[in-house]
């Protein structure tokens, strides 16, 4: 039985070194993916093979922690083999759970590996009790990762009406899209985040200097134009700067990073089981710094501190160098 202090801390690992860093920094659970299209962070040089996963699981289990495997993209028509193999490999390597989004894969995992926990990925975009109940009754999911579009009171209301654990995002990228349904990046690049596992694939991203400005481009489309010393961001279509009526502005979402550290007691009171740190595509330095900060805060709250204590500044880790509570404190519906 694991000893979870306050809330379970679920941390990203893009490499075996990042997995060890996360465990050493105090992650309760580490999530990772395979080096292919079966996970939503399919970037060059990133992710695990079967041997690395087996070693990572052994490292975590020796310290009483969990490793769960994200297989959270959607199989291409007529090519489900890589996704089935990924589930089989995760089970064979001793993973503690798989994170799935596709109903066919949930069904396969339930039938083939009934004792392997199934977590419903944020990519499934399940955000109401009926939907979550359907996944629980039909595929026996143990946990749902809630989409990043819910306010704290909505999270609380949802949890009170569902019978599985809830995991919510606490730090990292924010997304305004319906998770798992966004086609903005595929429209521009021809590669789908939902099936190929990459939004704004690196091979389509380029930066160019234009006098005092820097332009970031995705394919042939200029996503943003930065003045000297202005903080930069990833060239993702939902956070591009658009010119309307001669004004350049972020119409969908500004390049900002989620940081929910200040509302952890509210999330706990809402009935949340686990906090997810986003960022398997980030470095192990990011993993070490963010996990250490959250571990410190969670341990303080577990000791009875009434509110989160100030920890290391995570400002620089946030996309665009700016932090937000995003939908947790939204003023829109």
């Amino acid at each position, binding site marked *: 039985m694991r000893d979870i202090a306050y809330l379970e801390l679920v941390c990203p690992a*893009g490499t075996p070194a990042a997995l060890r860093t996360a465990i050493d920094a105090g992650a309760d659970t580490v999530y990772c993916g395979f080096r292919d299209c079966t996970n939503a962070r399919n970037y060059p040089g990133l992710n695990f093979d079967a041997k690395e996963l087996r070693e990572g699981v052994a490292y975590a289990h020796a310290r009483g922690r969990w490793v769960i495997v994200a297989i959270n993209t959607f199989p291409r028509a007529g090519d489900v083999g890589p996704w089935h193999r990924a589930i089989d490999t995760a089970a064979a390597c001793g993973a503690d759970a798989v994170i799935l989004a596709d109903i066919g894969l949930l069904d396969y995992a339930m039938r083939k590996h009934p004792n392997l926990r199934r977590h419903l990925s944020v990519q499934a975009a399940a955000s109401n009790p009926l939907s979550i109940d359907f996944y629980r009754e039909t595929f026996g999911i143990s946990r749902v990762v809630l989409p990043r579009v819910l306010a704290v009171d909505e999270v609380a209301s949802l949890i009170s009406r569902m019978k599985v654990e809830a995991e919510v995002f606490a730090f990292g990228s924010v997304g305004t899209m319906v998770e798992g349904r966004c086609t903005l990046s595929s429209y521009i690049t021809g590669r789908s985040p939902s099936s190929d596992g990459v939004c704004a*694939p*690196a091979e389509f*991203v*380029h930066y160019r200097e234009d006098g005092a400005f820097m332009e970031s481009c995705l394919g042939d489309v200029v996503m943003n134009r930065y003045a000297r010393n*202005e903080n930069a961001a990833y060239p993702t279509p939902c956070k591009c700067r658009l010119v309307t009526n001669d*004004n350049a502005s972020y119409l969908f979402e500004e390049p900002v990073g989620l940081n929910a550290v200040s509302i952890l007691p509210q999330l706990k009171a809402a009935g949340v089981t686990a906090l997810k740190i986003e960022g398997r595509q980030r*470095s*192990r330095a990011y993993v070490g710094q963010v996990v250490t900060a959250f571990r410190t805060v969670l341990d303080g709250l577990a000791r009875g501190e009434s509110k989160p204590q100030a920890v290391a500044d995570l400002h620089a880790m946030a996309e665009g160098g700016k932090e937000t509570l995003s939908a947790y404190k939204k003023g829109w519906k």
Partner: protein
Amino acid sequence: MDEVTFPIIIARGMLAALPRPVIGRGAAALMRSMRRHHPDLFRNLAALPPTRLQVEPTDLPHRFLLSFGEKPASLTLVRGDAPACHATLKGSVDSLLALLEGRIDSDALFFTRAITIVGDTSAVVALRNTLDREEISLLDEAMALLGPLRGIGRRSVLRWEGRAERLRDRIIAMRAPDAPEGRDLAAECGSLRAEIETLKSRLAKQEILARRKQGVAA
């Protein structure tokens, strides 16, 4: 092992002062040492598509060409015009070495514009992710070149680095007697400029919303 800060002042001074042939031979020797101590890194680099990256420390008079994929990875000094390459990575030598060692988050450096990438981003992303799998100590690699004298060399380098840091701090304090300690006015100006841009964006968004509301009301 004790956590040791890389002696960046000594390293930068040596890279700026040493003749080019010495730096070229030093880079090749460093790569040989790393290949011995990090075989997995070089295997993973060889598995990547053939890539040539220009690495440009902005505070040094040198540029380097890093080649990997298919052939064994190599680091050479660039002479004359920029060579044909897939991408260029620019930043202070401190940032670049911190990236190599995985001491700092590359995305955070990119957000703050401390490093810039021009060209094929996937080549740089693949390199970053491959490097991030390894725990590299450049100081250990450099000292390994000294053979049995590496212990003495390490202690000497760190002692000189400590002295250099104290001297640098004194010079900074003398040059800017009125500036509050630790303040980087250029960075603050840049940050304020960025904030103004953000506010302008928000204002534009509000104007659009207001116009929409007016339209609805009408």
